[in-house]
């Protein structure tokens, strides 16, 4: 499983592996916001928590099909499926690799991007914490969507339609904790709920992903 994890990591970092694309997308989305809603710093400060969370979420979404597609196309996935490694272990390893190459960098990138949107001072630590805790959930839930749509040609849009509703609780708990920190309220309850959600996703989604892969591979 560790070998699979490091292999996926190496593949992502290679050129064409899509590593920087998610970050670039995140930056562009954040840049678009003032173009769309105006550059008034007070307004931007008000919506910054949500925008940063949505931007990170969408950037995660974009790289989801990589998780299984490439291996499916060249037959590696079939080989992996017949290996002694349980399929749920495979999906978990791949989801983790996705998080390290996407969610984690996005979490780090969110901090400087927060300055672009005039995010208030007290919110930064909570932005970082909520993204650090929440992005693994996005990867593991997203991996499920990727597993379901792996056999579908040009299934990117369908993948989004399936995964985005599943992202709603994560988005809510993540964004609410940051917003509460801005308003001077207690962000901890929301953060704890987010942590619970991530724990649930990390533990259970690999099994659902494995079931979906099995359906697609037979």
């Amino acid at each position, binding site marked *: 499983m560790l070998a699979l994890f490091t292999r996926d990591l190496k593949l992502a970092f290679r050129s064409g592996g899509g590593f920087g694309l998610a970050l670039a997308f995140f930056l562009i989305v954040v840049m678009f916001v003032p173009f769309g809603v105006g550059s008034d710093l007070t307004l931007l400060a008000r919506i910054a928590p949500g925008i940063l969370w949505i931007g990170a979420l969408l950037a995660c979404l974009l790289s989801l099909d990589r998780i299984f597609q490439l291996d499916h196309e060249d037959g590696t996935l079939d080989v992996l499926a017949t290996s002694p490694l349980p399929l749920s272990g495979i999906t978990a390893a791949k989801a983790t690799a996705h998080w390290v190459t996407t969610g984690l960098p996005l979490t780090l990138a969110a901090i400087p991007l927060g300055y672009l949107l005039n995010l208030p001072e007290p919110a930064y630590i909570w932005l970082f914490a909520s993204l650090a805790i929440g992005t693994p959930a996005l990867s593991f839930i997203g991996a499920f969507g990727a597993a379901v749509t792996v056999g579908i040609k040009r299934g990117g849009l369908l993948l989004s339609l399936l995964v985005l509703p599943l992202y*709603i609780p994560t988005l809510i708990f993540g964004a609410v904790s940051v917003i509460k920190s801005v308003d001077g309220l207690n962000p901890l309850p929301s953060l704890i709920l987010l942590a619970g959600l991530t724990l649930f996703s990390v533990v259970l989604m690999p099994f659902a992903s494995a079931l*979906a892969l099995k359906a697609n591979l037979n």
Partner: protein
Amino acid sequence: MSFWEYANPVKFMGLSGRLIPVLSVLTALSLAVGILWGFFGTPDDYKQGSTVKIIFLHVPSAMIAINAWIMMMVTSLVWLIRRHHVSALAAKAAAPIGLTMTLIALGTGAIWGKPMWGTYWAWDPRLTSFMILAVFYLGYIALWNAIEDTDVAADLTSILCMVGSVFALLSRYAVNFWNQGLHQGASLSLDKEEHVDNAFYFPLLVCIAGFVLLFVILVLIRTRTEIRLRRAASLQARNT
């Protein structure tokens, strides 16, 4: 005579074929009685005026919207465990009905909301949850349409239904948390259930029964369609 005998497509077609004429009559009757009674035979509400009459469409459609999904959950589970095609196809059949009911609930709610709340839409937890439900239905239907192999499609949509149900439930709590967490709870409680008032309660019950029967008959017809299509496809493969 076990219930599971009707998992056999032939038996299912037989039984449903016999049920549908009877059900059509019952459905038409209860819908007609319920809606006409509700529309013509009930007084205006002192607060909501005649708009209270919308309740006879709004509440039943909302109930079916939720229960259709629950039915899909059950039939999906049956497919995953017992591999009865009739069950998987019944789930597929129910989805568009559930989606339509969700849209009716959202639509009548929005129309009712304009004069009552001054707005067509509010991000009230209940409305938001219904909108999320509509999107879940869309995703489910889209997935069925994206996959050619019936068995693979049945598997994937069933798994999606189960996972989606968990997240739909989580979303319900998250949305409640979100709305009261951020703002003053919208004091728009459309859902002061008028059920308490007998004048509305009984016509409403008849309407609900009518909608339930409509759901049942539409699911039966649509499942029969799916079974026929599947059989035609397999025959076509053998004929060519």
